[in-house]
């Protein structure tokens, strides 16, 4: 077995340092090493998107990234989305709640992280753009109807709020 490697990574604003197996997946590093279990695993093939996190601001499927590859990077997970001293929810989280954009909740963290990336790149998406933007995230409960509605609504609210970002 190869020697462990050192990983320095900033997760949700906090600097973390670990020695990890070279083959350790980022998603397992987040879940098992750091205890951030809000990021989920739903497949073995990078199809479902439940493990989506932001890596240096870009949505990635953390089951397809080695922890070692995240060395020096900033990672944001669902636990880092509610920010501020009062822990206020991100507009996307509020919108998912308001519009019933989740049922079992398992795909939700990945959906929210993907949507955050989508809105960062395209603050005023059409419904079709939202649907294509979420293509890499699977949900079995909602039929996507209310997820799309939630993202559109969050886009509206974020557009009208100065200074809110993913």
């Amino acid at each position: 077995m190869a020697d462990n490697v050192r990983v320095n990574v900033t997760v949700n604003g906090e600097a973390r340092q670990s020695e990890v197996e070279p083959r350790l997946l980022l998603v397992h590093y987040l879940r098992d090493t750091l205890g951030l279990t809000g990021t989920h695993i739903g497949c073995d093939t990078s199809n479902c998107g439940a493990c989506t996190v932001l890596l240096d601001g870009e949505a990635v499927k953390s089951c397809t990234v080695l922890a070692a590859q995240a060395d020096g990077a900033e990672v944001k997970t669902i636990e880092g989305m509610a920010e501020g001293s009062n822990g206020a929810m991100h507009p996307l989280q509020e919108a998912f709640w308001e519009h019933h954009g989740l049922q079992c909740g398992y795909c939700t963290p990945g959906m929210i992280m993907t949507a955050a990336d989508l809105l960062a790149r395209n603050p005023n998406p059409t419904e079709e753009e939202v649907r294509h933007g979420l293509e890499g995230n699977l949900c079995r409960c909602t039929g996507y109807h209310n997820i799309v509605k939630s993202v559109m609504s969050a886009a509206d609210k974020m557009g009208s709020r100065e200074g809110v970002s993913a």
Partner: protein
Amino acid sequence: MTTQVQQERFVGKALRRKEDPRLITGRATYTDDMSIPGMLYAAIVRSTEAHARITSIDTSEAKQHPGVAAVFTGDDLEGVEAPIPMVWAPPGVEVKVPEHWPLAKGKVGYVGHAVALVLGTDKYGVIDAAEKVIVDYEPLPAVVDVEKALEDGSPVIHEEYGTNKCFEWSLGGGDIEAALNEADVVVERRVVNHRTAGGAIECRVHLADYRAGNLTLWSSTQIPHILQLLLSLQLGMSEEKIRVIAPEVGGGFGSKLQCYPEEVLVCWAARKLGRAIKWTETRSENMTTTHHGRDQVAYVRMGAKRDGTLTGIHSRIIQDLGSYHLIEGPVIPCLGAFVMSGPYKFPAVQTDIVGVFTTKFATDAIRGAGRPEATHMIEMCMDQMADELGMDRLELRRKNFIPKDEFPAELPLGVIYDSGDYEGTLDKLLEHVDVDAFRKEQAELRERGVYRGIGFSTWVEICGLAPSRVVGPGGFGLQAGYWESAQVRVNPSGTATLFTGSSPHGQGHETTFAQIVADRIGCTPEQVEVIHGDTDMGPFGMGTYGSRSLAVGGESAARAAEKVRAKASEIAAHLLEAAPEDIELNDGKYQVRGSPDKAMGLADIAGAAYIPEDLPEGMEPGLSEQTFYDPENFVWPFGAHACVVDVDVETGKVDIVRYVAVDDCGPAINPLLIDGQVHGGIAHALGQALFEQVVYDEDGQLVTGTFVDYALPTAAELPSFETDRTETPSPTNSLGVKGIGEAGTIACSPTVTNGVIDALKPLGVTWIDMPLTPMRVWQTIQEARGSGTGPRATEQGTQVDGHGSGSAGSGPTAPSEGGAS
């Protein structure tokens, strides 16, 4: 009851869900989010053969792998007292139940059959070690075609039976042969409902801990209490020593309604080793050995008079069961038999079912469970019949609807439909869908080479599984009661805790059940904590499946809350010096009728109940009540759906242009959540109808083992849905509610399929089987044009012969004029 609810303050409101904050902030706890100090990880060595004798298993190298604590095979299962249970034993019917052990003993019957269990300290290490287990097989013939499996000369999977036929079961009413003889037109069709997967995004996870004689299992299950009971039988343990907890569960759709081999294995091994053990399923394992659904071939005959009066429907269903049963696989096609009348007045209905073993994994309940299959048969054949008669499709349906004023309606099948207004839902649907305008648009588009079609279905489903005397051991033959429990505990400060035997996995019980209880006891939903999914908390319960939670569990909660209110009213009457019958619950206050100033809230009443200085003579302290509710009848939701599709005739690709659903599940408790259930149900069936198919090749190898090969629909392939409701209360329960979890799935597959046929009619297409993949649609168009060349193929490239492998090659058999007389 001493008081009446003056108004529903919370029931009927589209409240956002109480469970959501933890789910949207990443603070929820699913089973895989837990670990226990000293815990071992489990990996499972699985059969690579569909059907084979195991000649040897060498675990020596695996046992030497660093961190490995133990490796077990089927020979080691001392202490597993019984095979995996199957709970259906219909009186007077023989159902063959081959012994299905959690680890194979000498023989495997499907790809993925568990052969060895590897336990170790490292998550990745156990997978490495599992690869070092060497299993030698002597292959036996695979049996993959459910119809060929019944033929003489087919290899037999379970030699002891001498046949692959597992059981035969029938349900009928009226003289079906006479009814078809009387018909002027009989439509005969072979209808295939292909094999699908549940596709919950959370795979299964089971974590067992055994300490000092007590076993705890955390499991992604829909039925914690039933699992507790079954595990006690499996492990020879006393039931009260076993605690099963379903924490946050990431979707089920029936696929987590089980006592799975892995659930038994982790418990057994935890007891054997005295250590906690966690098994986390991979998606590949989920596709292989989390039960599949559907997989029926049916021969349907529907008869009608020339004027469109239906005379009868007969269906012979051949159900592919796989090689071994899980909890209730053989039951599933039989559930469909209960709705084979649809919403129509058929004087005669007959369903004959034969269950067949094949060398595939078990089929069992997946969202809808037998009813989507039945509805597909009925509603496809209704369109076929309309075409044969030259009648409008909706007119044929209307002509045969059971009229609104005939409910409760006893059917020839012997079942009693509780309430219905089938015309009402169809009328409402047509407020949203202008068929005349559509036909004009369709004609214009066709001139431009755009093939647009519209499909409909009008349907009824059976849910609210209960009543025990009907579905239990002496009736249908399920070896259980089908009531639901509830305990409403008002806490000393006046908040409440509801313990429900229902076990949600996305349905939103914590919100809807709180709405129901709050209105009945006089508090707010925020003040009602709903506890579920833990066998150590609250009474025994029956779990969540078959759209039963609200109609059985919700009603049970309502009844427990009514009991609380009755006692609370007595206390209030005593303290306010009034008669109990003069106390009314108004705007959250227990007040003396006509004297708004003489009133008290639940907190004051709870205080008096728990500090019993001044209670009515003889009354016990405390304020907590329990109910076991066993309904008198099923509930029968219904609706009317329409789907507009465009078919690209060059590529065969189907696009959903519009999907409109009008559902009736009785009065809404929370409309927001009803719409959510309908959306999800429709999407599930659109996946089945358009994209998804579990495919085994001729050697019994699973071709669709990942989400790369098994295509769940994505947001990009689906439209936004249009939903509306009518509300026809059920007389079965006090809430008037039915069920909505499966409605969309039951309604949708014929709706979209009929739409595709409508679009392609100008090209001569009259029939197509699901899934309507571009390849299937394109082939169908070519065949209809008379230019079909070469053998048909499945989407995976395997050739399909005359009657297919349950995936293609179906269609009209013989529409016959004049019946047989």
